[in-house]
């Protein structure tokens, strides 16, 4: 589904990302881990054509992301708060995204209602603009918005950060469920090794922009990762 080829990004002589080849097949749940500055967000931004790689290209379902905008119809992402429209309420924001993705109000309502548990009563009907919500609640709204309109590729950067324990557990269930769908490719990045090993079939470790581990998740993966990062 995603095909990354010779992608590098250099800022004033400083290479922050350099990946020769990485292929993520359709339906995979893919986890990206690495310390700060490893290049996780850079990679996701390049995948969404928000930054232009210095070399190489990224294909999303055969579409080169910097050449055509066609990938946008089946890709959704939540990277950070710049994906939220601060002066809308959560509902208005969901409807807005829904309209962009060809979903009417009823469709959006139906989808959003599935996540009432996840929202924990703090998102819908709040009489608050998104900008006035807490970081955690903003994140909940952003994540669910990325699920509107049945996207085939879902990109979530650090989805577990800022969430309370209950919500983290519910988010893991949501991602696991998405991962079951053979049509949906999920890409997440995280600092939390145990979460990411729990929900992802495959884990890639980045370090200073280089791909240094590519693991199919098994019983031992968490140990292996912990050992790696303890060094």
């Amino acid at each position, binding site marked *: 589904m995603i095909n990354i080829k010779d992608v590098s990004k250099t800022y004033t002589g400083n290479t922050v990302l350099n990946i020769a080849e990485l292929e993520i097949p359709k339906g995979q749940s893919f986890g990206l881990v690495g310390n700060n500055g490893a290049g996780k967000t850079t990679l996701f931004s390049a995948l*969404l054509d*928000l*930054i232009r790689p210095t070399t190489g290209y990224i294909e999303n379902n055969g579409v080169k992301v910097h050449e055509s905008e066609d990938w*946008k119809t089946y890709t959704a992402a939540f990277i950070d708060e*710049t*994906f939220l429209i*601060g*002066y809308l*309420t959560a509902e208005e924001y969901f409807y807005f995204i829904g309209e962009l993705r060809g979903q009417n109000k009823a469709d959006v309502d139906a989808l959003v209602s599935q996540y009432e548990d996840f929202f924990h009563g703090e998102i819908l009907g709040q009489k608050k603009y998104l900008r*006035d919500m807490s970081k955690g609640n903003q994140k909940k709204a952003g994540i669910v918005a990325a699920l509107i309109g049945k996207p085939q590729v879902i990109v979530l950067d650090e989805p577990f950060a800022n969430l309370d324990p209950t919500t983290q557990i519910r988010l893991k269930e949501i991602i696991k469920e998405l991962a079951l769908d053979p049509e949906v490719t999920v890409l997440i990045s995280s600092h939390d090794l145990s979460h990411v090993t729990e929900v992802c079939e495959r884990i890639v470790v980045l370090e200073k922009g280089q791909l240094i581990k590519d693991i199919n998740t098994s019983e031992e993966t968490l140990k292996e990762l912990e050992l790696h990062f303890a060094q």
Partner: protein
Amino acid sequence: MFKHFITLQWKSFWRGASVSASLWMKLFMGFWALWFIVMAGAGSIGTFYFIKKKLCEDPLIILNSFLIYWVVFDLVFRYMLQKMPVINIKPLLTLPVKKKKIINFAFAKTVFSFFNIFHAFFFIPFSLLLIKDGASASNVLLWNLGLMAIVYSNNFLNILVNNKDNLVFIVGGIVAILGGLHYFGYFDITIYTAPFFQGLFDNAILVMIPITILIVLVVIAHKSFSKDVFLDAGLAIKAKEIKTEDLSWLDRFGKTATFLKNDIKLIKRNKRAKSTVMVSIMFLFYGLLFFTGSIEAYENPIWKVFAGIFVSGGFLLSFGQFVPSWDSSYYPLMMSQNIKYKEYLSSKWWLMVIATLLSTILSAGYLYFGWDAYLAILTGALYNVGVNSHVVLWAGAYIKTPIDLTSNKKAFGDKQAFNAKTLLLTLPKMVLPLILYAAGHYTIGANFGYALVALAGVAGFALRDKVFDIIENIYKEEKYKTIAAYKQKK
């Protein structure tokens, strides 16, 4: 301690994203500052001689009678434009610095604000002329002292009332009414206030009044600030309870409606966007300067086209110049969502066109000044819709200033918005229609001039799709730079 604060300020200024911008921008800012100073100085000398020679009155007395308006307008402008003295207070709160000191520094900073200094450039030349004219130097000094105290009282009053919404509109409304009553000769407030300002000149004791007021205001402002320096008090962002809105009646516009609905909410819910609408309403009245013949320099017929463009295009020019910066805080979303650039641009275009049509209808009042005046506005509207709407979108691609929607204190702060390209693009916006009109006016006649300008508008409209393709490509080219620039928050 003050030394630390000053180095912090210094660094925050020079390391801010805005300053690292180009030489062009610095030149431009320098130019504006100089412009204001020269205007103030020239205005001061001009006023003095105008009153003396043309009106044959005592400049001091006439100026004193109008000073009440000066003072109130100063307050209104401050309220709208002057930034609050918030040095980055949050990180300092837990450090071993006395809160008093932090506030002292914040206040001291405002003392040197342009809004205070500016007055000096008017009053100092005026005072010098007064002395030259034989007024007693000590009295002039007294008068200046009193005025200075009033200006600084305004400064601290503004600090105090700045959070009270709507207050400025009440004050402004009262002033407008008083001004109107004055103009039409029903009631003249200046009769009551002029003696006071005159008193500042004549009587040392009267000067104590503004000075006392100033001291009281400083103390109150200090107290109220010390109370507010907590994360959950003055430093907190206030959340108002709000209602969701249903704008589904706009859905008939198809895909464009999605964005239109969003833009309407943007305008209604954000201070900064709201003030843009206020500005465009003010532009509606701008034409009065031209069509009433109140300013001689504007008598030339060419200026009527100029007025026409501003009256019908106030919104287009003031809102449009910051497309796409209005969406800066969520630009990555817009760029990765299922949005085609064309749809996005055309929704902004429609918004500007609808606003232009609305302004044109509202400005039908100018028919009072004759068909010719309204013709100028209609022509301007055509040009705005056909040409300027595109130019504004085009220029927008080069403007990479993130906009903080919730604050409207940045009207002077948007200096980054100016660069060589956007400056060049003001030529087709303003100058080209004037040249076209002049070409027609001085060869065949006024109507031919209007026809030429209108024709340019129609031509631009006809080429809309072509132009949109070009603009779309420019936006695409600039996309990565724009995203990166929007990431840098002030």
